[in-house]
């Protein structure tokens, strides 16, 4: 409103601003061009001294919502006199985008293939395992995770949980389940079926239904996967990773679901747990794991190391398994989980099978782009 009073008229103002803005943008572009050489940044991070486990500030925590027992967090806060500043993501790709954009967190929980990706991109720190008092719980007892496929020697990550992806459904609404991925096309539950809003999970599910590799990037395979996912849309209520709430709200009769979320739902939210079934489709089910990492730009890596150590402590492992419904990958974790899930044989997770054909792997950029394009086109259709 004050513009007409200026000696500089609006057009000059805009022109001047645009010029300087463009210059700033070009400077930014040059900057990001320079920093996009991954070898330089990863060398720098490995040469730097590794962080020491001592309190150096509050814990900036970035993970799935509600993916840790509040009692475990409260214990950490009172033991070390720090606060936990929590932010959540609802998918790994979104998590990676935030970290690539430079957001700083102390601890993050990516899926296995994202650990590999972040290590290659120089986004995470090498960990000094002598800093962990409970390292013997996680490593050195013959665990597969002493040297997992996604992070040689677990140099940059500490393994956390493992799960299968299957189908949860309500027996009172669905009587025609076949124990197959075809159940996500079930006529009885039309309009009440949810598919996980994660590109790997949706594409992997369609691939298994078609008898293809979950990691396929073959153009013919992807075309078939795209068609089969689009054919599913009339049956769907929505794409969502919020499986627990969708089942609790009554909106979902059939949910493409993670094993641990199902157990969690049955134990805490279901009005009638006996109505619900978790099935592992006969065509095969994805089996995946995740691990904690400390980003290169973490403001408080010392507190972050204490947090990773805290999660390995047997008491906290027991609390978290009870709360989350997922097997944790420590010495005691698998047995505790087997007891917790004993009433549901389909929820059994064999942690020795972490190398299997249904683990989501990384792709080269062209193949990744082709898979992303399928997911975009399915959702837009």
């Amino acid at each position, binding site marked *: *409103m*004050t513009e*007409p*009073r*200026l*000696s*500089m008229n609006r057009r000059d*103002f805009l022109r001047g*601003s*645009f010029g*300087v*803005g*463009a210059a*700033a*943008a*070009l400077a*930014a*572009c040059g900057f*990001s*061009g320079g920093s*996009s050489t*991954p070898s330089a940044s990863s060398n720098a991070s490995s040469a730097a001294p590794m962080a020491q486990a001592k309190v150096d500030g509050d814990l900036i925590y970035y993970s799935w919502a509600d993916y840790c027992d509040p009692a475990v967090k409260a214990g950490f806060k009172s033991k070390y006199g720090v606060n936990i500043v929590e932010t959540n993501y609802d*998918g790994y*790709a*979104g998590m*990676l*985008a*935030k970290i*690539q954009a430079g957001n700083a967190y102390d601890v993050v929980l990516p899926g296995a293939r994202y650990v590999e*990706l972040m290590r*290659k*991109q120089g986004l995470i720190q090498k960990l000094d395992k002598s800093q962990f008092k409970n390292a013997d719980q996680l490593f050195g007892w013959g665990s597969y995770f002493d040297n997992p496929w996604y992070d040689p020697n677990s140099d940059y990550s500490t393994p956390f949980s493992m799960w299968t992806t299957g189908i949860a459904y309500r027996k009172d609404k669905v009587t025609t389940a076949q124990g197959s991925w075809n159940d996500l096309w079930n006529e009885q539950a039309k*309009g*009440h079926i949810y*598919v996980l809003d994660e*590109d790997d999970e949706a594409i992997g599910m369609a691939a298994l239904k078609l008898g293809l590799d979950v990691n396929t990037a073959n153009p013919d395979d992807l075309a078939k996967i795209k068609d089969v996912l689009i054919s599913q*849309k009339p049956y*769907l*209520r*929505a*794409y969502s990773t919020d499986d627990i709430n969708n089942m609790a*709200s*009554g*909106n979902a009769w059939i949910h493409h679901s993670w094993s641990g979320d199902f157990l969690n739902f049955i134990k805490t939210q279901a009005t009638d747990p006996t109505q619900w079934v978790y099935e592992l489709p006969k065509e095969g089910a994805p089996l995946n794991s995740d691990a904690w990492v400390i980003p290169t730009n973490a403001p408080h890596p010392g507190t972050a190391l204490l947090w990773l150590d805290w999660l390995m402590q047997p008491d906290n492992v027991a609390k978290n398994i009870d709360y989350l419904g997922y097997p944790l990958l420590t010495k005691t974790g698998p047995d505790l989980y087997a007891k917790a899930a004993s009433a549901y044989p389909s929820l059994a997770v064999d942690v020795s099978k972490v190398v299997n054909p249904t683990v989501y792997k990384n792709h080269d*950029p062209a193949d*990744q*782009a082709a898979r*992303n394009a399928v*997911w*975009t*086109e399915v*959702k*837009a*259709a």
Partner: protein
Amino acid sequence: MSLQVEDALVDLAKEKRRSPTRTRLWNVLLAPPALWMLVFFISSVTIVVLLSFGHVGDTGKPVFGFSLDNYKALSDPVYLKVFIRSAVFAIATTAISLVLGYPVAYTIALHGGKYKNALIAFLVIPFFASYLIRMYAWSTLLADEGLINQLLRDTGLSSGIRFLNTPGAVIAGLVYGSIVFMVLPIYASLERMDTALIEAGKDLYHSPLQTFFAVTVPATRAGMLGGVLLVFLPALGDFVSAQLLGGPSTYMIGNLIQQQFFEGQNQPLGSALTVVLMLALLIFMVFYLRATQRVNREK
């Protein structure tokens, strides 16, 4: 709102230029907002435009470049479909907001009496809560076993209605999120209208309805145009409503852009989508400016 802005501009244009010292003061005062615009608006728009000609690099990070590939990719019919869907949702939202918002503004402005300001305040208060929170509240209320469906079942009115995850739910969310931006400008123009004109219309043997369309509506056209603009532009780019209340086939252009930046990891394609959306909004903006000029000339 827009009426006030226009009038202020007209008033100011009529005023003589100030002395040089006053002008310098204004320049100094304008520096912080100019810097703000520069850093947070113009440079970010410039980055988006430049990035739209780039591609995704080997490590998955966006790289600047000079190719039209992203725009060629947008020629895929699937994107056109999403654009048309977004436009239909936004037009429906605008039309419903106008039809619902006009009577509200009319009643408050002409029959509100001493409660006018209180009524406007009540209208605005819910907007103190974040749009996201209000959409979450809706999704809880409207769930299949949510409060509203439980009431319907308890009273025997219906065995339950599927509200959520439908195009209707997305449009309803958009209307709820933006209707106040329709009501306020219309209210402002009705407030300023000379009610003697309505009396005159009746004196000339117009029925109340004829008077409304021949007198009131033309007199508040600027307010309606402002409201249409304020509702349509954000609705076209919205993604929250479709994300929280929509189903598998209610994707809007805002969802697509969000997906490219946060899920698809294809920021250059997301930038190209953003540029196309901005151009579409710009065309609408030009149309609005010309329409308001016409309204001003007719005055």
